[in-house]
């Protein structure tokens, strides 16, 4: 009798253990949701959809993108932070959500390092300095000279207080010792409209938004951050070439899962994402939108990267005294 019971116990234990192991091997058995905390149509959305579509082909399960915009991307992010850590709900988190928001807000409803298990960074996007061509400025050096001669006179636009574009501009001012006036808007396209119209003169933006206008000559691009010129904007010098090598600013987009997601699953997702990013078609499609595929090698490396970014931005925000109250 005891022999039967103990045999059953051993059997059950064996099944139970193999199931937990098999769980990670069988993953995924359901559709995977990628939550994008922005409205459909932006760069983050594009990254999610492109990577998602390729991942779907590779793993044979549907990968669905859900847009949950609102509250400066906090609503969608909170959603994933509180989701079940089973690997079926992922966050498309970028620099603003995972590193800028924690540095900006004192009472953030999530903690990027504690509430998330970072999976992989996907792409980097440089920042381009664009001006309205009516200005008598043709290079970064001239911009700095003009700004120094007329402190506070130049207006630059951003997509909101504490937004990436705001931080990028403030970093430029900090590094070059200039002062420009910040004009916040409700979105980069609104700022772009006023830049084209001439109400504001400068923007430090992701290249994708003003790209067509730069190519058509309606806006002048003075310089781009990063070590290499962009293939889509070959005439725009890097900041180093333009004489300001110390100005470096990047936004990045990556994927994260809720904290406590089993490491085996995180690793599997990491591998899948890196696989899609290595395909030339995907690389090209991103390159056309001024995004450079630059993945971190492992989830731990990504976590370390996020931590460093938060520190770096915290310093900038304190120095530039940026305070979005509430």
């Amino acid at each position: 009798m005891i022999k039967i019971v103990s045999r059953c116990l051993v059997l059950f234990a064996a099944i139970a253990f193999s199931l937990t192991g098999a769980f990670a091997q069988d993953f995924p058995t359901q559709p995977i949701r990628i939550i994008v905390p922005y409205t459909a149509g932006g760069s983050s959305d594009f990254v999610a959809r492109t990577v998602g579509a390729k991942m779907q082909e590779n793993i044979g399960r549907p990968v669905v993108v859900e847009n949950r915009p609102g509250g400066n991307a906090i609503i969608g992010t909170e959603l994933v932070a509180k989701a079940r850590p089973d690997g079926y709900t992922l966050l498309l988190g970028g620099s603003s959500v995972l590193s800028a928001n924690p540095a900006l807000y004192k009472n953030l409803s999530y903690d990027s390092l504690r509430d998330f298990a970072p999976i992989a960074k996907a792409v980097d996007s440089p920042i381009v300095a664009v001006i309205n061509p009516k200005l008598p400025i043709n290079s970064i050096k001239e911009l700095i000279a003009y700004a120094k001669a007329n402190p506070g006179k130049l207006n630059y636009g951003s997509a909101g207080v504490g937004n990436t574009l705001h931080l990028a501009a403030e970093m430029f001012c900090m590094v070059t010792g200039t002062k420009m006036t910040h004009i916040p808007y409700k979105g980069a396209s609104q700022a772009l409209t006023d830049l084209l119209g001439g109400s504001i003169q400068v923007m430090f933006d992701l290249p994708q938004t003003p790209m067509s206008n730069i190519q058509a000559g309606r806006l002048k691009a003075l310089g781009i951050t990063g070590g290499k010129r962009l293939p889509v904007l070959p005439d725009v010098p890097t900041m180093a070439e333009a004489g300001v090598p110390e100005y470096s600013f990047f936004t990045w987009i990556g994927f994260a899962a809720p904290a406590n997601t089993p490491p085996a699953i995180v690793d599997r997702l990491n591998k899948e994402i890196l696989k899609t990013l290595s395909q030339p078609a995907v690389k090209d499609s991103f390159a056309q939108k001024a995004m450079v595929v630059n993945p971190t090698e492992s989830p731990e490396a990504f976590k370390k990267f996020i931590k460093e970014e938060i520190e770096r931005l915290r310093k900038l925000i304190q120095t530039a005294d940026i305070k979005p109250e509430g």
Partner: protein
Amino acid sequence: MDLLNNIGLGLGVALTPINLAYCFIGVLVGTLVGVLPGLGPLATMAMLLPLTFNLAPVTALIMLAGIYYGAQYGGSTTAILVNLPGESSSVVTCLDGYQMARQGRAGAALAVAALGSFFAGTFATMVIAGFAPPLAEVALKFGPAAYFSLMVLGLVSAVILAAGSLLKAFSMILLGILLGLVGTDVNSGMARFTFNISALSDGIGFVIVAMGVFGFTEVIVNLELKAKREILTKKVKNLWLTKSEFKAAAPAVLRGTLLGCMLGILPGGGALLSSFAAYTLEKKVSKNYAQFGRGAIEGVAAPESANNAGAQTSFIPLLTLGIPSNPVMALMIGAMMIHNIQPGPQIVINQPELFWGMIASMWVGNLMLVIFNLPLIGIWVKLLSVPYRLLFPSILLFCGIGIYSLSYNTFDIYIAALFGLLGYIFVKLECEPAPLMLGFILGPMLEENLRRALLLSRGDPTIFVTNPISAGMLIVAAILLGIVIVPVVRKKREDVFVE
């Protein structure tokens, strides 16, 4: 002529079987989505976006565009039948459209909405075809000071929007402005009146307030008037427009169309503002002034044409400058990006078949919509004869689903219910919701642009008069205000409503 060649090229692209099919799917889905309260074209386009991956770029864009302007057609249906604005731009249609339905003229209201929308869509398409680049340039000239003055003009005309007492109209506008302040302030990043509820950090949604104040309130009011309501819906007259109605509506359609075209090109303007503006203009200009708010056909014709014209011309900044004028256009940019098209000034040169194909298919889509919607009028009107005890739970259910589909947040439904209650109080106090809605939209825009203009001028208030566009609009607003305030006119208004 160059334009004719281009239109020919466009029609050649738009009339291929596959593009026609997807155009039809787009407008069909758009109409259905427009009829459903709450669920809007933006959410639907986002959901259908993956379907477009394997389509040719032109086809994908044709379908998505069809959903957008199809929704404008559908939104008027529920606005007229049950006082429920299916789309935010149909809020104004509720005012006279629903009154017409209660008088048994629902068929005529639906017909004029469909025909007016078709005319506006056709006209707007021609405007885009002929004048897109210069109009985009005009739009760029509107800086913050000009926008501010436009908002002031809008608010002054909001007073005209109301039929009753001047004091009540002002109060509702002010209340609307105050409600519009809820949310995150653009210029400082500060959250105002959000009580730490993250759902409120982007403000209260316009659609939610509209559904509460128009739709839910109407249900409550009707439930109170139990017996009376059954009688009203029995006497449905003919389903078409009488000759005199046609004659009255025609100039309204024309004015609405022109106004819609002009406001649609302004980024941030679009369909919503144009319908309010057209209603106000029509009320001021029409001889049938007294009937507005009571079932004047011009009060349906003008806003319906304007919102369609506005919806179409809001494509102009997208197609010529690559700048989205509202979230729906931003999604279109996303769709273009997915298909590796760069929207902007070069599309006309680099991909003329895309540009002209889209424009031609807008007209084709409008044609499909009017052919599709007119016969349905009979069916929609039959819906009115459903006993109310069956109708109102369905209305509430669809509203609930629609509101939830916006942000997947039950909090929004509570807010709508709260506004339904508030709306009922307004009805009892004889205050009108329309000025509140206008204040709700215009107030925040007014504040944002005022502060931005002053930031740019470093605190110098004379910027509002030195900028020519801004000065012009402020002058018109002052004149309008004078006309409204002058006691003689006020006495005349009160006399008319003492009947």
